[in-house]
């Protein structure tokens, strides 16, 4: 810099301004803090506190009792079963429509219907299944009187593990269809043709190209469906009352009436739910980013 510049008139310094534009995001930030972040933090912190407020791992350790572990285990089993079956059936339906050479007009109505069905959860869904597969449900009666198949004699009960799984599938399958259809659309015709012309059989194309490309979407959706059924409370309560001890029902009862006899054990129970759905969703987001990069 030359010394002359000091003789030149000083440029008028811009008056210092508070970064006011940050204020525009303030209402949102306050809302999210008060009604999403802080309540969640309260639970997380509470899981590591004694009733007096000092740090402890006792609540977490308290989760490892037979009844609570079995509640988690049933929840996880139902979530895995409904996510896996939802993925497989949903994938088959989406693949049938996208790749199976079915008439084009089926696609629009199917996606619309999936949009509705994936939102049709909660209490009414439970009623629908009770009316269909319950003791006097449409299908139960039909199978018994017309085909001589007694579901109950076969060990099926709508208020059980399989009953809940079958019910959850009603929103899991459409959700899978909604998410996997774009991924199937993303499979370019040229990939199949390039593989064929390079000498690959149809099976080799699926094993080496199509399946690996779809795998992140598939696994990602599996994780999402898992979290989706793990957090479902209303359907479970409306269907089974409190007869099936899964984590959301247990937590519901705990919040209502401290059935565990230790308020901070409730925090730990909820914390466990956050951890499990958090892991599942992280897997989903990570895998989705990966497949989006490929299909760009």
């Amino acid at each position, binding site marked *: 810099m030359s010394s002359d510049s000091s003789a030149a008139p000083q440029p008028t310094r811009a008056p210092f301004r508070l970064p006011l*534009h*940050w204020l*525009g*995001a303030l209402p*949102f930030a306050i*809302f*999210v803090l*008060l*009604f*999403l972040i802080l*309540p*969640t933090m309260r*639970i997380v912190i509470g899981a590591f506190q004694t009733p007096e407020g000092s740090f402890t791992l006792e609540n977490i350790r308290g989760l490892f009792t037979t009844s609570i572990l079995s509640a988690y285990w049933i929840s996880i089993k139902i979530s895995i079963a409904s996510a896996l079956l939802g993925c497989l*059936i949903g994938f088959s*339906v989406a693949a*049938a*429509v996208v*790749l*199976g*050479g*079915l008439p084009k007009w089926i696609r629009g109505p199917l996606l*619309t219907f999936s949009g*509705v069905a994936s*939102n*049709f959860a*909660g*209490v*009414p869904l*439970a*009623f*629908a299944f*009770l*009316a269909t*597969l319950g003791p006097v*449900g*449409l*299908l139960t009666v039909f199978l018994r009187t017309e085909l001589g198949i007694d579901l109950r004699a076969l060990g099926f009960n709508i208020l059980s593990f399989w009953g809940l799984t079958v019910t959850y*599938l*009603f929103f899991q*399958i459409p959700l899978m269809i909604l998410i996997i259809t774009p991924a199937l659309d993303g499979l370019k015709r040229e990939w199949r043709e390039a593989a064929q012309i390079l000498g690959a059989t149809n099976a080799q194309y699926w094993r080496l190209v199509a399946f690996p490309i779809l795998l992140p979407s598939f696994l990602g959706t599996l994780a999402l469906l898992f*979290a989706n059924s*793990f*957090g479902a*409370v*209303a359907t479970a*309560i*409306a269907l089974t*009352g409190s007869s099936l001890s899964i984590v*959301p029902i247990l*937590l*519901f009862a705990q*919040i*209502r009436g401290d059935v565990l006899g230790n308020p901070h054990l*409730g925090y730990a129970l*909820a914390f466990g*739910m*956050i951890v499990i*759905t*958090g892991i599942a*969703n992280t897997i989903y987001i990570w895998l989705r980013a990966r497949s989006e990069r490929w299909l760009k």
Partner: protein
Amino acid sequence: MKKLWAWGALTVGLLYFILPLLGMTNFSLKMRRGVYSLDAYAVVLGDPRFQETFVFSILMALATIIFGVLLVVPTAYWVRLKLPGLRPYIEFVTLLPLVIPAIVIVFGYIRLYNTSSWLPLTGSITGTNILLMFGYATLALPYMYRSVDTGLRSIDIATLTEAAQSLGAGWTTILAKIILPNVLVAVLSGAFLTFAIVIGEFTMAALLNRPAFGPYMQLLGANRAYEPAALAVMSFALTWGCLGLIQLVSRFQKGVQSAA
């Protein structure tokens, strides 16, 4: 051969969708012994508890929608215009309600805003209603924010804003008269989805002890046989209605855009 497999998969899938709907409809019509009748519907619709809770939930849904629009539209607009660096964080935050189960969030509310806390919202009926509305707004946040943000992406908000400012418009005018009409379709889509979520929501309303439609349905389901099926049919129709309206609105927007 290949087609046969495809038709098979589709048929199994469709049966899965249709049988429960058939089951609940069939059941809802069988209240009178031996004949199909609409008795179950008449009983439900005539139940004052039904009317009360249904009206309560509709009011809650409307309040949630108004609050959600007022919160989300200015924020999404402002973030796109002035704070684009914040977008990934906001997006992450708006996805959190999908990760944290509703039961956990409401558990946090009960502990945080009880009568002995600094903000005793659960201490009064009005306070609890407001808390429930905030809870619903949280549940609807992922859908509302994404819908509006996608809507904003398709218009050039920077140019629109500068044009409005050069004509002397203030922020309120810009938001109400320029931005909102341009993202109206996105806002409506978010609103209908919010409506569908709020109207049948069970967990939050039950744990905050508010007389909403969701808990009423659950209560009825525990005590009655045919009426719950009628309720299920009605809420399915309601969900269809809301999502049908979304389709209709977005089709209308496509029509407008292609005409422009």
